[in-house]
């Protein structure tokens, strides 16, 4: 166990260190969510005027919940890109060669993804508050919201690690990103679920990201809804993606 912890610690440290010292790594993970926040919350704010749109904290908070979770998910995706880059550059081989407990490498990448996302989360929350976002939820609700983000980040990072380790090339980027992108954007991003119609409504109703998004919005509004369901779904997703990542690692070990 001690060896596992040391390996995880080393890999996570490198991930966070490289994010902090390299603008090329840090900026995309900040710019994308900030752009979404500005474009959605600012440019589409009149959407909240449509009938039956009754989200009390306002459209900025409504969109913030999405951007918050999206940044968590994409924090994991960006880590997947880094894993793929490590395979292309050969650095992953150094990790495989050095780490006595190789499963610690996955844990390290996941912890690194969390560290990177926390930086992004602080920046976008500050930006949203500066833009006048109302938060009706109390301390416990905010902790719950952060918990949802952490679980989302974890699941996404493990998914991305798995794909990167199976394919071991930067060309895996599209495959890492696309499913996360589709799942997120087939949730009720711009309006509440009940205002969606047609196939988009049908898909969004079945999409597990919908429950998480609604839970996040409920926590910000101070009226929690579907929180337990969301945590259960995210925990299930984390278990599945952890198994996926472990299989990816085994594939990388077999390939040399």
């Amino acid at each position, binding site marked *: 166990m*001690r*060896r596992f912890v*040391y*390996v995880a*610690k*080393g*890999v996570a*440290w*490198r991930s966070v*260190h*490289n994010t902090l*010292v*390299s603008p090329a790594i840090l900026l995309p993970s900040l710019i994308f969510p900030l752009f979404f926040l500005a474009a959605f919350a600012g440019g589409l704010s009149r959407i909240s005027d449509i009938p039956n749109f009754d989200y009390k904290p306002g459209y900025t908070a409504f969109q913030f919940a999405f951007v918050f979770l999206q940044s968590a998910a994409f924090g994991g995706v960006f880590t997947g890109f880094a894993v793929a880059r490590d395979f292309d*550059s*050969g*650095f992953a*081989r*150094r*990790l*495989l*060669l*050095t*780490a*006595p*407990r190789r499963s610690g490498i996955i844990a390290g990448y996941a912890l690194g993804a969390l560290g990177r996302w926390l930086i992004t989360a602080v920046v976008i929350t500050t930006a949203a508050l500066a833009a006048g976002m109302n938060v009706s939820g109390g301390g416990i609700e905010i902790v719950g919201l952060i918990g949802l983000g952490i679980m989302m980040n974890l699941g996404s990072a493990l998914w991305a690690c798995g794909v990167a380790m199976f394919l071991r090339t930067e060309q895996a980027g599209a495959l890492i990103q696309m499913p996360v992108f589709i799942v997120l954007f087939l949730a009720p991003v711009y309006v509440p679920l009940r205002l969606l119609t047609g196939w988009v409504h049908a898909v969004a109703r079945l999409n597990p990201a919908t429950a998480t998004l609604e839970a996040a919005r409920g926590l910000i509004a101070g009226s929690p809804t579907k929180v337990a369901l969301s945590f259960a779904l995210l925990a299930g997703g984390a278990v599945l993606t952890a198994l996926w990542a472990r299989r990816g690692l085994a594939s990388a*070990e*077999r*390939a*040399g």
Partner: protein
Amino acid sequence: MNSSSPAIEIEQLVREFRKGPRAVDGIDLAVSPGEIYGFLGPNGAGKSTTVLMLTTLLPPTSGRARVGGYDILRQGSQVRASIGAALQEAALDAILTGREHLMLQATLQGMPKADRTRRAQELLERVGLTEAADRRVGGYSGGMKRRLDLALALVHGPRILFLDEPTTGLDLQSRSALWEEVARLAKEEGMTVFLTTQYLEEADALADRVGIIDHGKIVAEGTPTQLKEEIGSPTVEVVPADAGAGDALAQRLASFGQLARNGRGAVTVQLPGGESQLAEVVRVLDQAHLKVASLQLHQPSLDDVFLAKTGRKLEGAGEDQDERQP
């Protein structure tokens, strides 16, 4: 592993790649503790694939191997803890500094923080990277990267060191510095070194024993001296001061062994009794009052050994082979 058991033991090790030939085709070998074993062969012979298997980076298709007393398949974690390796490509992170690389490596190996700092400094000094220690590795020269790679392999004080073509692409000065360090590690620290190379002089200068691999099979093994003796005796080339004395020279030297006549009256003769016959050659020339411009002893080289065992010269021998570069 006790002191008498081999540091590295391989039995019928095979690695096949899909749609490819057997990169390693049933090799057997044993390396004793503290020994420098040179694994010599052209590009694509199977050297790197063997190293990847022994360092647990690639599972074998069949066969067995124990490194440091641990099975490479079942006890990979213990194998990795007891070895250090510098592979063909010094895979470094361009964003990290040399010191950060060493600290990261020490963390991955589970060293306490105080030891990490001390060990990093010690190794930076040993490989001559103290001044560049806090610079990003992206700006290092090829030689500096190789030296850092070696330092990284030594962070946790391994008992066994794998070096996969460590001097490829290095200038002469960096090459000889690395040779000195490898020799010191084996001699002073009792480290077992498994070294792959395609340079004959490297194997000759460093290795206690050499295994020659070709097409995935070991075709010869022994000390460099044994291997050379196996394929023939040394020769002496005598160039007379007077080019017209070539016939007389050939007549006198014919009694030693097979002769070859070269230009300007020079004669080359084999010494079946070995280099100890050189004194006798000098005596014969002196008694015959033959004046000599030069006299040179030629020992058989490992290249001659490779030629004798494979029918090809080592240089360029890999061009027709196709080892997967994993």
